[in-house]
C-alpha cells in the first residue's frame, strides 16, 4: 500500500493549510533589535547555567551560558552588547523564567570574534558530536530537543537510516519550506555530517506534497555520492511527528513506549540539519533562526531570519503590526503552539513561527456534551480512544487513563480539532500526562525513601 502517491500514515486530520501567505516569500533578515532576552531554558532538558554577569561585554557568538548535564545545551549571545541583567523575563511558556538580558551595541558591526572553523572532514564522530553540542544546536522543529543527544545512540544500537523531517505539517508555518528551497545544499551537507556521526548508510527526506518546489530543490542539489532519497508525502497532520513520519516513510511502527531507534531510525528536522551545516561552514553556533510571522491577524506576513532572543513584539512590528481583529498570538503552529499572553517574550531556538489568528479562526469556546460520534477515534494518529479518555478525565480517573495508553498521546490536538462538541480533549490529556508524570515521580521518590530506610 506504500505507493508513492499515497505515502502517509493512518488517521490524522486535514486542517486548512494556510501556507500561501508566506510560502513564496523569500527569507528576509531583520535588523538587530535594541535588546535581546536569552532564556536559560530554551531547550528540552536541564536549563543552561549562566557564565556571565551583569556588566560583562559580549561579542556575537560568545557562549554566555553552559550546558548543565548531557541533556542540556549551551546558550550563545546572538549579538554584541552588554549584559544588563540576569533576571526573570516573560517566556513563551506563559510564565516568567530566568533569562540573560543584553543591551545590543547600537554601532557594532556585529562581526564575531575570529575563530578557527573546524574542518569536518578530518573529525571523528565523537568530535563532530562535541562540536554540534558546543554549537548549542537543538531541534528547530519546535520541541527543541538537544541534537547531540540524538546523534549518540546507546552502545550497540545500529542506526540503519537517518530520516529528515521536511513535512512542516502545521498549518501556516513555512520556515522549513523556505529553508529547503533556499538552502538545499546546506540540508545535504548537514545530512552528510550527521550520517557520519551516526554511522548510518542511508537517509530519507520526507516532504509533504504541498511543497513541490522544496522537493525539486532538494532533488536538484542532491550529491551523487550521498545515498539519500527524497520522498513526497500525502499532506496530512501530524505527519511531522516522528512516529507518523517513520510510519509514512518506511511503514514501521515505533513500539509503544519506545524510540525511533528501536526501529533503527533517527529523525531530525531539516532546519536543524541546515544549522549543523552552518556550524561547520561558518563556525558560528546557533544564534539566529528563521521564523514565519504570519496569520490573518498580521498585516504583512513574512519569513524572517532573526537573532535568537528578539522580542516577539519586535517581529510583529516589523511585519506591519496586528490587525484590528487579531485575537490570539500563537508561538509555533496553531495545532500545537502555545498562545502568547505577553508579546515581550523572546524568540527562542525552538520558535518556528508567530501565527496571529483572528476571532473567526480560533476554535469555538462553547462546549456541548460528548455525543460519542467517534470522530476523535478516527482522527487519533496513535489509535487511542480519546472519547473514553475524555470521559475518564472528566471523572478524574488518572490511573484508568494511564491503563488506556494515555502515555502514547502526543497532544497533537487532532481529537480537539475534529470534536464537534468542542471538548478540549487534547488539552485535558496534556494536563493529565503532566499529573501522571508528577505522580510517578512522587512514587519513585517515596520508593527511594523507603529503600533508603530499609
Amino acid at each position, binding site marked *: 500500500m506504500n505507493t508513492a502517491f499515497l505515502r502517509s500514515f493512518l488517521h490524522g486530520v486535514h486542517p486548512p493549510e494556510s501556507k500561501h501567505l508566506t510560502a513564496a516569500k523569500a527569507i528576509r533578515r531583520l535588523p538587530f533589535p535594541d535588546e535581546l532576552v536569552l532564556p536559560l531554558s530554551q531547550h528540552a532538558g536541564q536549563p543552561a547555567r549562566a557564565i556571565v554577569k551583569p556588566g560583562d561585554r559580549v561579542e556575537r557568538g560568545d557562549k554566555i551560558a553552559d550546558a548543565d548535564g548531557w541533556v542540556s545545551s549551551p546558550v550563545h549571545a546572538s549579538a554584541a552588547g552588554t549584559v544588563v541583567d540576569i533576571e526573570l523575563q516573560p517566556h513563551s511558556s506563559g510564565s516568567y523564567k530566568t533569562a540573560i538580558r543584553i543591551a545590543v551595541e547600537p554601532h557594532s558591526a556585529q562581526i564575531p570574534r575570529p575563530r578557527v572553523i573546524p574542518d569536518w572532514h578530518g573529525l571523528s564522530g565523537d568530535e563532530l558530536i562535541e562540536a554540534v553540542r558546543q554549537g548549542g544546536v537543538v531541534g528547530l522543529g519546535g520541541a527543541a530537543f538537544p541534537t547531540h543527544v540524538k546523534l549518540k545512540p546507546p552502545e550497540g544500537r545500529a542506526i540503519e537510516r537517518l530520516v529528515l523531517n521536511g513535512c512542516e505539517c502545521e498549518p501556516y508555518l513555512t520556515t522549513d519550506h523556505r529553508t529547503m528551497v533556499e538552502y538545499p545544499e546546506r540540508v545535504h551537507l548537514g545530512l552528510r555530517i550527521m550520517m557520519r556521526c551516526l554511522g548510518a548508510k542511508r537517509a530519507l527526506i520526507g516532504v509533504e506534497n504541498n511543497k513541490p518546489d522544496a522537493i525539486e530543490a532538494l532533488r536538484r542539489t542532491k550529491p551523487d555520492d550521498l545515498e539519500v532519497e527524497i520522498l513526497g508525502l500525502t499532506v496530512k497532520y501530524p505527519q511531522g511527528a516522528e512516529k507518523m513520519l517513520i510510519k509514512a516513510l518506511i511503514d514501521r511502527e515505533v513500539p509503544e513506549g519506545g524510540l525511533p531507534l528501536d526501529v533503527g531510525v533517527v529523525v531530525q528536522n531539516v532546519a536543524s540539519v541546515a544549522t549543523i551545516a552552518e556550524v561547520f561552514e561558518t563556525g558560528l553556533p546557533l544564534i539566529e533562526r528563521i521564523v514565519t510571522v504570519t496569520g490573518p491577524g498580521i498585516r504583512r506576513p513574512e519569513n524572517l531570519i532573526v537573532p535568537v532572543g528578539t522580542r516577539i513584539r519586535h517581529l510583529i512590528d516589523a511585519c506591519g503590526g496586528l490587525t484590528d481583529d487579531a485575537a490570539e498570538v500563537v508561538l509555533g503552529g496553531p495545532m500545537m503552539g502555545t498562545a502568547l499572553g505577553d508579546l515581550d517574550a523572546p524568540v527562542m531556538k525552538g520558535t518556528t513561527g508567530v501565527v496571529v489568528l483572528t476571532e473567526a479562526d*480560533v476554535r469555538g469556546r462553547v462546549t456541548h456534551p460528548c455525543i460519542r*460520534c467517534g470522530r476523535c*477515534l478516527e482522527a487519533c494518529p496513535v489509535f487511542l480512544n480519546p472519547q473514553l479518555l475524555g470521559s475518564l478525565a472528566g471523572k478524574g480517573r488518572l490511573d484508568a487513563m494511564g491503563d488506556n495508553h494515555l502515555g502514547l498521546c502526543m497532544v497533537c490536538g487532532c481529537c480537539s480539532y*475534529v470534536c464537534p462538541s468542542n471538548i478540549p480533549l487534547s488539552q485535558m490529556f496534556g494536563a493529565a500526562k503532566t499529573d501522571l508524570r508528577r505522580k510517578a515521580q512522587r512514587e519513585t521518590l517515596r520508593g527511594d525513601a523507603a529503600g533508603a530506610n530499609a
Partner: protein
Amino acid sequence: MSAESRLLVTAAPHVGSTDSTPRIMWTVVATLLPLLAAGTWFFGPGVLLVVAAAVAGAVLPEHFFGRRGALGDGSAAITGLLLGLTLPPGLPLWMAFVGGAFGIAFGKLVFGGLGQNVFNPALVGRAFLQAAFPVAITTWPAATEEWMTLRGDLFATPLMSAAADTVTAATPLGLMKFEGTGTEVLELFFGQTGGSIGETSALLILVCGAYLALKRYLDWRIPVSVFLTTAVFAGALHLLNPEYPGPLFMLFSGGLVLGAIFMATDMVTSPVTTKGAWIFGAGIGFLVVVIRVWGGLAEGVMYAILLMNALVPFINRVTQPRVFGQRPKEDAS
C-alpha cells in the same frame, strides 16, 4: 495596540473544524423533513399533527428538566421527529405526545441529557407506546377517498381510547406474517404501501441517508452492515425454504431502512469504534430477521436496535482500537 489588550490565551489546538454538534443535529432534522413531506403526501395532512404532537412531547420535558438551553442543540427535535415518523398515521395525538415525553424523560433525561443516554430515546418512546397501547399502535387506517380527510381518530380525548370503527389496512409485513401474502418490491421501494408515517418510501430515505453519510453526519458502516446482514441471512433462509420472505422484501418492508439509516446511526447510542459499528449493524440485521421470521411480532427493527443499544457499552469495550506500536506490523505479517 488595542488588539493586544484583548488577546486570548488558550491551550492548543487553537483552530478547530467547522462542524458543531448543533449543526449536525439540525442537519439531521432538515433531512427528516422530506420524509415527513412524503408521509403527508401518502397519508394526508393528519400526519403533520401526529408528528407535531410527538415533537411537542419530546421538546417540553427537555425544555423544563434538561440542561439550560438544551433545545438549541436540536437533539430533542430529532427524537420527536423520528418518533413521529415511526407512528401509524391515525394514532390519537395524546398518545404521540405521551410517547415523545416518555422517550425524552426515561430514555434521556434520567441519564443526564444529550450524550449520556444508552438507548435511543425515540425508540424508547416507541417501545413504550407499543407495550402500553398495543392495539392503537398497530392500527393502520385505510386510505380515504379525500386526501384532506383525517385518518383514524386523531382527536381522541386524552387518556381515552380511539373510536373503534376505523377501517384498517394491513402493512406488507403484517400481510406476510399473518396471511402469507407478499407485496411487490417496487411498491415497497417507492412507498405505495401502508405502514408508519415515515417508513414507506425506501428510496427517499436512502437518498436522505446518502446525503448525511456524504457529510459524515452518520456512520455509513452501520446501515451497510445492517443491510448486508439482513440480505444475506434472509437470502439464506429463503434459499433453504422459499416460504420465508426473500431478501429484497426483507430490506424494503417495514421500518428497516428508516431504522438502519436514522435510528441505528444515532451517534450517542451506537459504538464509537469502526469495528464496533460493523458488529452493531450485523447484530441489528440478525435480530431483525430472527424476530420477523420466528417471533410473534411482524416488525422487529425497533427491538433489534434497542437490544443492540444495550450491547453498545459492551461492544465498545471489546473493540478498543489497537494502539500505535502495540503490535508492530512486521510481527503480524
